[in-house]
C-alpha cells in the first residue's frame, strides 16, 4: 500500500485509491451560493424615533411654558391708621407720577376656582346631598346608641339608680 499517495497524492498512485476517488468523487461538494441574511437598515427607524422624541420634547416645553403664564400684577395698598399720619412713601424708581407705585407682585400659577364659581343648580344639589348625609349619620348614631343600650342593660340600670 502506497501511503504517500494516500497522504498527499504524491509518489506512485495507488490504483485502488484512485478508483475509490473516482467513484466517491460523484458525492463531492457542489458549490452553492450562500444566501446571507440581508443587512438591516436601521436609519428609517432611527429617524422616526428621533422625530417622535423631538415632538415630545417640544410638546413638553410648550406645556411647561403655557402653565407658567404670568398673572396680571396685583396691587396691595397698605392703609395707614388715621391717628398716625405718615407721609406716603415715595417710589424708589424714578417712574412718572401717572404710574401707581407697585408694592408687591404675586405670580399666580393657576387661578383656583372658588366654590362660589359653581353653578347655582350644582350648589343646591351639593347642599341637599350634604343634608342627606348628615341625616344618615344622625340616624346611624341613634341606632348605634340604641344597640348599645340594649346590649348592656345592667349598666344602664345602675346608672339610673345612681342618677
Amino acid at each position: 500500500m502506497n501511503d504517500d499517495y494516500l497522504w498527499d497524492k504524491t509518489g506512485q498512485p495507488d490504483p485502488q485509491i484512485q478508483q475509490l476517488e473516482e467513484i466517491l468523487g460523484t458525492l463531492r461538494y457542489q458549490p452553492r451560493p450562500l444566501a446571507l441574511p440581508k443587512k438591516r437598515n436601521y436609519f428609517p427607524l432611527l429617524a422616526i424615533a428621533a422625530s417622535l422624541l423631538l415632538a415630545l420634547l417640544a410638546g413638553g416645553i410648550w406645556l411647561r411654558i403655557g402653565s407658567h403664564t404670568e398673572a396680571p400684577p396685583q396691587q396691595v395698598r397698605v392703609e395707614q391708621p388715621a391717628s398716625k399720619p405718615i407721609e406716603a412713601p415715595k417710589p424708589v424708581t424714578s417712574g412718572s407720577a401717572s404710574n401707581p407705585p407697585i408694592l408687591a407682585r404675586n405670580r399666580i400659577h393657576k387661578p383656583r376656582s372658588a366654590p362660589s364659581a359653581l353653578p347655582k343648580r350644582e350648589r343646591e344639589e351639593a347642599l341637599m346631598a350634604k343634608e342627606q348625609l348628615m341625616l344618615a349619620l344622625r340616624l346611624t348614631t341613634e341606632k348605634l346608641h340604641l344597640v348599645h343600650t340594649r346590649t348592656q342593660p345592667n349598666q344602664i340600670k345602675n346608672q339610673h339608680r345612681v342618677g
Partner: protein
Amino acid sequence: MYATADMLLTSTPAHAAEQSQEPAIEVVLVRAVLQGDREGFSRLYDLYAPLVHGILLARVPRAEVDDLVQDIFLHAFKKLHTLRDEAAFGPWIAMIARNRAVDFHRRSKVTVEINDELRGSDQHDSRAAEILELIRSLPEAYRETLVLRLVEGMTGPEIAARTGLTAASVRVNLHRGMKLLRQQLGFMEGL
C-alpha cells in the same frame, strides 16, 4: 458524543502555520468579516464548505447535507464574534458541523434514506452510495478523515490544517481507516 478525544488533538497555531498558509488567510478574512465585510465571509464559505460538507456526509443522510451546510454557515456568520482565536476558524466550524450532525440524529425520527439505488440512477452513483455506507460504518475518527480524503479530494496536510487535528493523527486515521475499508470492500477479490 460530540467529539472524540482523537479529534480534539488540535495543533498549535505555529504548527498549523507551518503546514499551510491558510491560517493567515483565515485570520484576515475573519477580521474583515467582524469589521462588516460580508464578502469576506463568502470567501470563508468557499474555503470551508467542502470541509463542512465532508464532515456532514460522514454522519447524516446525503439529502440533508446541502441544507445543513447552509444552516451551519449562517449560524457561524451570526456567531462569528464569539470566536476567540481567528486562526481557529476551521476547527471551530468543524466542531459546529459535528455538533449539528449529533443534533440532527437526536431530533430526527428513524428514517430510511432514499439512496440512488431506490431512485433508479446509474450504477456508478449506487456504488458510491454503497461505499459511503461502508465508510459510515467505520469508527468515527476514521470515517471523517476518509470522506474528506476520498470524497472531497483533500490531502492529509489540508485535512490537518482545516480541522485543527495534528498531521500525525490524520495520517494514522487515514492509514487505519483505509485498511479497514479495504477489508470491508474485499479488495483482495477486486473492487
